[in-house]
């Protein structure tokens, strides 16, 4: 009868450093792009460094959260077009209710709002998975729903937040020169994403986004995981809405409009594949900073804001095309 052939069959893939480069290359590259932009940004600015860094972090904070929310959904194989308008809902809701609150009350209310955003987003995910309607259709519908809800809560910009709450976005950490706005993003990433990323739920999100069938055959609850991804994304979206309130000090029902598509841009720029299963949040945060900084740079150069969008669009396409070509080269 047959016996095991004596020769050992070994599969050797690419060298470890090459593999690491493939897995993390994009993230590293986005951070390098960000660093490379710094000297040019500095050369244009008249302000001192500390002030500029703070302004940049405040500007970037809502986009960071929107992009993190989008990244989680996209990694799980979906896409969420309702992020911006859900942010606006949280923004107006917090500004309306927090006006007369103390700092402590405002914080407690913030937690409630984050929970609310998570539930709202999870509900969207539930509709998608139960009806099997494509993500893009359901979330497009929710985009309009939340837009209407935001206007219903607050027709014209108004409301306010306690000063200490604003300071969460505008101040610095203790007596250091690290802006709170950056620290909050870091903490959210550490608390909300990192533990999940390295445990089974996070692996499941990647697995479902990579191949729904393989994930199912591996015993993953596909529906549960996808809804979970939307829930988690909702937490980030809620944080994004609060970031809008804290940094601007008011509620504005139209504040979220640009964030949906900008979050998609940051996700793509940050190395998350729109097909799902690939990428991480670190690159996406860097991408959000790159987008924000490029906007500031164009503003400093005196470029007409209407044309500034053209430059940004070209930048995104260029980076993604170059990145795509580079990663394809290393694939084979």
């Amino acid at each position, binding site marked *: *009868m*047959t*016996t*095991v*052939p*004596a*020769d*050992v*069959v*070994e*599969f*050797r*893939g*690419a060298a*470890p450093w090459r*593999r690491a480069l*493939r*897995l993390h290359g994009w993230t590293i590259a986005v951070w390098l792009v960000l660093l490379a932009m710094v000297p040019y940004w500095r050369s244009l600015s008249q302000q001192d460094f500390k002030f500029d860094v703070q302004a940049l972090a405040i500007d970037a904070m809502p986009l960071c959260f929107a992009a993190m929310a989008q990244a989680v959904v996209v990694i799980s194989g979906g896409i969420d077009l309702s992020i911006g308008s859900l942010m606006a809902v949280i923004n107006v809701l917090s500004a309306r209710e927090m006006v007369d609150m103390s700092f402590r009350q405002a914080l407690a209310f913030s937690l409630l709002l984050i929970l609310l955003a998570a539930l709202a987003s999870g509900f969207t995910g539930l509709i998608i998975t139960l009806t099997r309607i494509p993500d893009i259709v359901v979330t497009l519908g929710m985009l309009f729903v939340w837009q209407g809800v935001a206007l219903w809560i607050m027709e014209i910009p108004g409301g306010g937040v306690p000063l200490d709450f604003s300071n969460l976005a505008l101040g610095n950490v203790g007596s250091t020169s690290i802006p709170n706005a950056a620290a909050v993003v870091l903490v959210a990433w550490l608390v909300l994403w990192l533990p999940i990323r390295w445990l*089974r739920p996070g*692996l*499941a999100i*990647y*697995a479902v*986004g*990579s*191949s729904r*069938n*393989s*994930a*199912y*055959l*591996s*015993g*993953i609850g596909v529906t549960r995981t996808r809804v979970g991804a939307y829930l988690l994304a909702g937490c980030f979206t809620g944080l994004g809405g609060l970031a809008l309130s804290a940094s601007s000090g008011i509620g504005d029902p139209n504040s979220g409009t640009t964030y949906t598509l900008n979050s998609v841009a940051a996700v793509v720029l940050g190395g998350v594949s729109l097909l799902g*299963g*690939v990428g991480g949040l670190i690159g996406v945060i860097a991408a959000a900073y790159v987008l924000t900084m490029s906007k500031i740079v164009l503003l400093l150069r005196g470029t007409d804001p209407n044309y500034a969008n053209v430059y940004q669009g070209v930048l995104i396409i260029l980076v993604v095309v170059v990145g795509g070509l580079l990663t394809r080269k290393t694939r084979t």
Partner: protein
Amino acid sequence: MSDEAAPLLEARGVAKHYGPVVALRSADLSIAAGEVHALLGANGAGKSTLVKCLTGVIRPDAGTVSLGGRPTRARSPMHSARRGLSPVFQDPALVPDLTVAQNLRLTGSSIDKVRSQLAAMNLKVGFGELVGDLPLPILRMLDLARALTYDPQLLILDEITAALPSDLAARVFDVMEQRRDAGRSVLFITHRLAEVIASCDRATILRDGRHVGTMVPREGGEAQIVEIMLGPEAAHAEAKASERAEAELPAAEGQAPATKADDVLEVEDIHVGAVQGISFALRRGEVLGLAALEGQGQDELFEALAGQRKLESGELRVAGKAFRPRHPYDAVRRKVVLVPPDRLLALLPQRSVRENVAAPRYNSPLRWGPINMREEGRSVRRAVDALGIDMRASRQVRRLSGGNQQKVTIARWLAFGFAALLCNDPTRGIDVGTKRQVYALIRELATDGGAILFFSSELAEFPLVCDRVLAIYGGRVTAEFAGAAADEATLLRAMHGLELDEEAVA
């Protein structure tokens, strides 16, 4: 069948249908403890559906499954794994964008145990590799190793050997034997009857979603398996078909000697990829067979003829005029058309049979204006009728069975008209009955004056279908036979580049 001990797994009357398409009518399966059991049947007989029902991937519409004498209902793949049923599915259950180690963590498998299972099979795989970077055979072995770590009562292997080179397949057979020695059972699904006879204790055979027989392969042999698989009527029809094919062959040979004017497609000393200088002429009214092992240049040859690949050197002529296709469009315009080995390469899976068949009619971007629906419908219907395509699920081609999809790819060129039909393994992965129809069709097309180039991975097809056969080895033609003389042994020798007996060469 012995009734002394309760069987490990007993399925009775399992049925499943998807809309109007019945995948499984009534399947029975009984597996004893400590046996290697084969599940056989033609394509579309319901083997994979039955496995999916047993393992909880899909829910059966009817029937009962009992495990160790107690009725069960598998709710999910994981659920059935906990009850001792570990499947290795046809498509690997490993997530491509995660590393091997991450995949194992995902399913809660022990990395050490998987590693030792792999070591027992003399395999080494880096666990930091991305699964997407690993070749398919390695993935199957990984899937197998993972399934083995659960020490399942019943290991289910769904066509695992189809994608494995023989040295890895040998390891699988060894595992099957070890399972049997340990008193565990294996359900083994395959198309290769030799494997069944060599390593299976019993075999259950399905036909059209029904259980049609259980037998001992070592006693009954290949003949009995095929007989049960085809059923009494089909076996009779098969005998008739081969009789007819035999009767037809002398007629095909007895034609007047071919002249230069009959050459539809001339190939002169071409080099492309692995092809190292091949010349031949494809004549009107003949089926020219190409016999070759994997990777001897036949794929490049087909690609070059169909305009998908540029020639490195050499010349092609169609109907005596130079033919230098730079795009499949050029080839189609000269009516040199391809039936590729992977049907999905040629089909528009989401569109209807009608659109798929009519597609080449609209291949010119310069062709504007309304479509003559009535004329299109007529020509499509003619082709569909000629091929006997099952039109029940014709709204979307992807829902057709493999055999019917293949017929659609041929029907397209039948409706469009062709000078030379290039068939690259047209019967790959389709069931015996449909294969017969394809043979008959190809013969008929040749009789009607078509010229057909025919490659197949099944050697038995050559004497049935071909007028002439060229054997290719190392990118060169090593021998030419008359179709009737191309028996398996002769072809095999020629395909391996071995010397041939004088009289076998035509």
